[in-house]
């Protein structure tokens, strides 16, 4: 080893020892500020790390406002939202929408094509029939009604015209629902807002979909728990996250027990019935939108299809109907996954 090399390692050791190379190590006094708001039909929590409480609070305020804006634009429950207007005009005429809504619809359709229809935003009409996401009881739909509605579930019946950014639902009775993508998108937009307001270390948790940026005030990565799909107040596992997103699709959040069977809200677009192979699928991805969409897709696809499709831009943890947990080694190696006994 040359003197130059020894010198290099000595310098590296000094820098590491003094913490100069430690990413996000606090160099100035820091506050870790928590804020909560009800948005997107769920509870949204933000933890923001900043040198000033006021600036962290302000960033949270603008992030919440951004999420509110997205909810007004994309909610299928609101008649005045862009999605609400598209649904009202199903089978009638093209509806002009903002470039932003157009872009998210384009991405949703790209996912549908890539996933061969296992992710399909036109599932809205069947979700509505079941009563999921509605303020009424969840009920087992009559087979005839389900068959009729299922015939309207096809992303190919959604026409996007990039020339005038119009959207047309080709069949009357169609209904799109962005429930599988909008929350993730809203988190990503909120994350961009936080950064624009100078906060680079934060965690956004919107009803269990999470984006974690940078590190905590103490310099450690954010510690995330995965909810146990049957013991709902326990954790299945914990892991660490930084500059990455995570989302879970599970059969335990919105469901009803009908005739002694569990019916949950993640519907298989091929059958109109809840996908049945897994209790939960947790996905790590670069963006919350991708984590959100992939979690829904992989929940329906299952572990066998997931393994066959490798390599993928995401990594997933599956809990099957017998409670067995399966995951890629990267969960343990990179994200320090620990199963809770």
């Amino acid at each position, binding site marked *: 080893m040359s003197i130059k090399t020894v010198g290099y390692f000595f310098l590296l050791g000094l820098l590491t020892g003094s913490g100069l190379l430690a990413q996000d190590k606090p160099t100035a*006094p820091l506050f870790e500020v928590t804020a909560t708001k*009800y948005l997107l039909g769920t509870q949204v*929590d933000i933890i923001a790390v900043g040198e000033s409480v006021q600036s962290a609070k302000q960033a949270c305020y603008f992030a919440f406002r951004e999420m509110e804006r997205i909810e007004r634009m994309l909610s299928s429950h609101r008649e005045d939202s862009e999605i609400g207007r598209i649904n009202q005009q199903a089978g009638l005429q093209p509806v002009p929408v903002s470039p932003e809504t157009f872009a998210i619809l384009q991405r949703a359709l790209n996912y549908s094509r890539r996933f061969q229809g296992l992710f399909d935003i036109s599932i809205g009409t069947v979700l509505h029939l079941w009563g999921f996401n509605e303020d009424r009881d969840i009920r087992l739909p009559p087979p005839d009604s389900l068959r009729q509605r299922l015939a309207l579930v096809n992303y190919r019946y959604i026409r996007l015209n990039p020339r005038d950014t119009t959207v047309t639902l080709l069949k009357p009775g169609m209904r799109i629902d962005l429930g599988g993508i909008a929350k993730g998108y809203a988190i990503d937009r909120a994350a961009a807002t936080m950064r624009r307001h100078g906060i680079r270390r934060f965690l956004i948790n919107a009803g269990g979909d999470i984006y974690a940026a940078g590190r905590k005030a*103490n310099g450690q990565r954010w510690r995330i728990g995965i909810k146990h799909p049957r013991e709902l107040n326990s954790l299945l596992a914990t892991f660490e996250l930084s500059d990455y997103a995570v989302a879970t699709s599970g059969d335990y959040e919105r469901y009803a027990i009908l005739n002694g069977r569990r019916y949950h809200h993640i519907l298989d677009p091929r059958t109109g019935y809840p996908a049945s192979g897994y209790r*939960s699928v947790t996905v790590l991805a670069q963006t919350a939108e991708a984590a959100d969409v992939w979690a829904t897709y992989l929940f329906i696809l299952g572990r066998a299809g997931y393994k066959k499709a490798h390599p993928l831009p995401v990594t997933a943890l599956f809990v099957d109907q017998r409670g067995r947990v399966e995951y890629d080694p990267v969960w343990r190696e990179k994200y320090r996954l620990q199963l809770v006994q």
Partner: protein
Amino acid sequence: MNRRDFIKQISFMTSGLVLSNALPGFLRKAAAVEIQRTPFQLSVVTDRPDEALARLENLLKSRVLSKSSLKYAEYRLAGDHLSDMALISGGRLINVHQAQDELSRGLLEIARSLDMPRRVGNPVLMQFSQDLSSMDPEKIQIFVRNQLVEEIDMHENREYLRVAGVQGFVAVAVRQGKANIVEASCRHQTCMKMGSIHHPGQNLVCIPNQVRVVVAGQHAKGVDGIVY
């Protein structure tokens, strides 16, 4: 707890006294629980949160934060409360009237400028702490739209505590240190299926009613967020 009991309890744990002569109920309970576990915690109840925050932040930056980071949380308290402060430092409840350190003097000055103590309606509770895990671990707190509306000792049994929510109501039972939602006006009643909670950081949420039932404190596993 009357003032005599309170002083007795505090005296037992520390040689110091409290900031004012009559801490509001909220701060009084917090102080009693926290005093021996927390390296640093400042709780402030005020109806002038913006003014208080600006001044407290400057003071804490110069007197506390040079050594470490602080966690901060705030929420509104329902009803009438006494506007005041409680400071715990180094495991002791500090009487800033008598203490000679700069932090206590600074806090006393801020308290005076905020006209503390006095009775105020629906104030904001601001908490600065080094370690949230020790904050109020013996309590069940019930929030409606982020406003604290009920606080129950975990060891107190309450069979049916009805709380008005945004759309209707939620009824909470606390028995033998566990809380669960026993009735709710919401349609899907997801909150009732969530079972019971007893560890710090666990919570039950009724989204339609915007009601949150929380076991105070940080999650036992030290998690910052739960994915579900």
